[in-house]
């Protein structure tokens, strides 16, 4: 191909972007392992292997350069996001099926890298939680520490996990609040389970750290995480003020579930979210609103996946209506003469 100007290029590639995203996930993973044992590492390995194998297979079927696209790292990012959003002690096939859906259906059936209208990891999560709601809501109990061997047995089906799993803080709350006893409040639940949420806030901290790294690397801009977290905080703050018995406080809302993972790694997926500055704000605020609504009024404990997918649908439209003014078209620029 004739190579025209510019002849200079900045040393950056899709691969380096993706690998830095993977790198940014590591603090969160360290905290995850610290509090919930090495099970998540097995899930990460399973998801990565499945994702790369599926990617290579589909690329071969689509007659695309296999190595170039497998090595871009995008499948790895999807795999890791799936592993981190799925329950760590879920059976092996749960994450394998989820990853296959993400790579084959959500990514390649739509045209592969850069073409997917929906966030692949969130498609996987949404599909699996609809199909296997029970398996998808069993999370390890913080109090129990699980070693590598136990984790293997649980994941590969040698033993059952009922004894050592419990719901996530969000799930516990929603089960309690939506239970038969109308007098239950957040306070009574928290009184019963004082360590609720412990560990999750450290993991959230790890994600925050990774997110700040991505901001510093200019891989993501401030718009998406800020608007997402602000809208969540605002909704939580107002609702908590109005009805503290049934609505979580700001801190709980932001630190529980995958809020921070979503804020820095899922909402910020460039392919399926908005690209204009104003569009990003609207998109992320919309995800925040939907998440909060689903958490409190919907049928699932955490609504991030559905919220992201819903806003993915709207992203092109938002982009279209939020095109920034081009050079010289800002309203304060009027010619002195005509």
């Amino acid at each position: 191909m004739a190579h025209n100007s510019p002849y200079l290029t900045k040393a950056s590639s899709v691969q380096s972007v993706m690998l830095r995203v993977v790198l940014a996930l590591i603090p969160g993973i360290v905290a995850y392992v610290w509090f919930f044992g090495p099970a998540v590492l097995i899930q990460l390995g399973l998801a990565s292997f499945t994702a790369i194998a599926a990617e290579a297979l589909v690329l071969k079927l689509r007659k695309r350069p296999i190595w170039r696209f497998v090595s871009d790292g995008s499948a790895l990012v999807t795999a890791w996001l799936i592993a981190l959003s799925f329950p760590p002690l879920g059976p092996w096939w749960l994450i394998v099926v989820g990853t296959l859906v993400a790579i084959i259906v959500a990514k390649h059936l739509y045209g592969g890298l850069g073409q997917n209208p929906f966030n692949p990891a969130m498609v996987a999560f949404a599909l699996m939680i609809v199909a296997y709601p029970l398996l998808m809501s069993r999370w390890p109990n913080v109090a129990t520490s699980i070693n590598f061997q136990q984790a293997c047995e649980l994941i590969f089906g040698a033993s059952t996990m009922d004894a050592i799993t419990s719901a996530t803080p969000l799930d516990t709350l929603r089960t309690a609040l939506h239970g038969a006893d109308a007098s239950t409040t957040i306070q009574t639940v928290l009184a019963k389970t004082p360590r609720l949420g412990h560990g999750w806030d450290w993991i959230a901290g790890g994600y925050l750290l990774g997110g700040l790294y991505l901001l510093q690397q200019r891989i993501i801009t401030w718009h998406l995480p800020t608007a997402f977290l602000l809208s969540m905080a605002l909704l939580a703050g107002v609702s908590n003020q109005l009805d503290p018995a049934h609505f979580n406080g700001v801190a709980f809302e932001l630190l529980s579930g995958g809020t921070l993972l979503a804020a820095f790694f899922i909402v910020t997926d460039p392919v399926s979210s908005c690209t204009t500055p104003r569009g990003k704000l609207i998109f992320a605020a919309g995800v925040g609103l939907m998440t909060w609504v689903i958490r409190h009024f919907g049928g699932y404990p955490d609504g991030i996946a559905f919220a992201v997918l819903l806003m993915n649908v709207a992203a092109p439209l938002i982009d279209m209506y939020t095109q920034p003014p081009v050079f010289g078209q800002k309203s304060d620029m009027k010619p002195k003469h005509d």
Partner: protein
Amino acid sequence: MTTPLRSLFDFNGGVKPDYHKDASTRLSIGVLSAPTEVPTELVIPLHQSIGGTPRPIVAVGEQVKKGQRIGDADGDVSSAVHASTSGTVSAIEMRRMPHPSGLSSLCVVLETDGRDEWIACQAFDHKLATPQEIRDYLRDCGVVGLGGAVFPTHLKLNADRQGGIETLIINGAECEPYITCDDMLMRERANDIVRGVVLMREILGAKQVRIGIEDNKPEAIAAMQVAVGDCGDDLQVVVVPTRYPAGGAKQLIRVITGIEVPHGKRSIDYDVQCFNVATALAIYEAIGLGRPLISRIVTVAGNVDAPRNFDVLIGTPIKKIIAACSPLPDTNRLIMGGPMMGVEMPGDEVPVVKATNCILLGSNKIFPPPAPEMPCIRCGECALACPADLQPLELYWFSRAKIFGKAQEYHLFDCIECGCCSYVCPSNIPLVDYYRFAKSEIWAREKEKSLADEARDRFEFRQFRDVRDEQEKSARLAARAAAAAAAKQLATTDTVAIPNTEASTEANEKAALIAAAIARAREQQVTATPQNMQQLSAEQLAEISAIEARRAEIREQAKPHLPPDA
């Protein structure tokens, strides 16, 4: 006088590539003076500025002097071209242009005589001249913007504006990597530049003058500040932060005045006018010294052993200046302009033109071939880098899919093709190529459409006229028939030849007339020598006879189709 503490403005986007400017600024501006270096043949393209192509006003074989006008501006949006040295016009023919297409265009080829003899140069008194006279003078001096856009300068030096303009900006930013021609010009000829700036200020009646220079050129800044201090006028040297493309006219206007000039508007609408430093010098030379624009400073850089700037006569084949810089053997491309916006040259015999600010030699080491293109991941880096505040990723999508209407809606034509988006793209997408493609496709289609519309109008008018003529003719015939009938009644005996209305007779008559005309034309061709051929030089006669021979050939071919007895 010196840089005042005044706040500058910022433009969005931009990039900071490696500048590579040091190498070519170590040596002073060179001149091709050694006998082997001096070109024996200059190829001066007639079309060297935006606008109409000048008409050649010299004949083959004519002796010309340095600075003699050889091409006359075609209309107001055009600019004259001149002989860059003295010599003989050896041909006026199509030669390959310094253009990525590699296509040819009409050039005056000059065989140099080595005497470098100037025409009589006379300074121009702009104070006594009317604005129109100043414009005509500059147009005839061939002064165009030397920053690269080669827009005719006389169109921007509008002196008849009431009350003058607010700000005159002199662009010495020179933001593109490798290029140092303006830098060296400011270092070495600051006084002449300032004289040109003062002239422009007087013509434009500018209230303030700002000379913008990027802060990576301390020597040029210092030289200009000294020159400004000496000139006694209150010009200001403004040091602007180094960031590509701060030297784009719109970006520099933005940085210095805060004004954003949108696409489709001229800076003069905002009371600002911007000229390149080299243009200022050209204006000084034209007005102050009476010399037309016949040379310019060209940087030779990149894959050469001794990068340097040269003062080059327009029309010099680029291989001459490249040879003076010892090019390295692995050179694989010649670029005119910088690495961000330059265009590849079809060969090294193409001439230096007024737009040639830099000849950049490339190799796989300096400019590695791009990594394979990946799909766009909509990361938005391009939008952050775009100095025109566009969304390059959307433009890419529409251009690639050839949805040109949408691309225009997303302001494709605001794109200045600076290359920042391609530079930052992690997917290595040749974004600017897509925009260039889309733009030229849209232009071509618009031109095609306007031609089609014109053809439709002309066709429809013709049909209307045919019908009208038919009606008028039948009315006339009816009237005549009536008159004839009346005449017949009056005098039945001497019948006048009433025009026969039957078509066949008319056609026969016409055919006879045509046959007679063909016969006459043949006779004339054999015998007559046109009067205008009596006082011609031998060469011209030779050329005419060559043309006649070609025509005879055509006539031979046409013969079988001619009516046998005509």
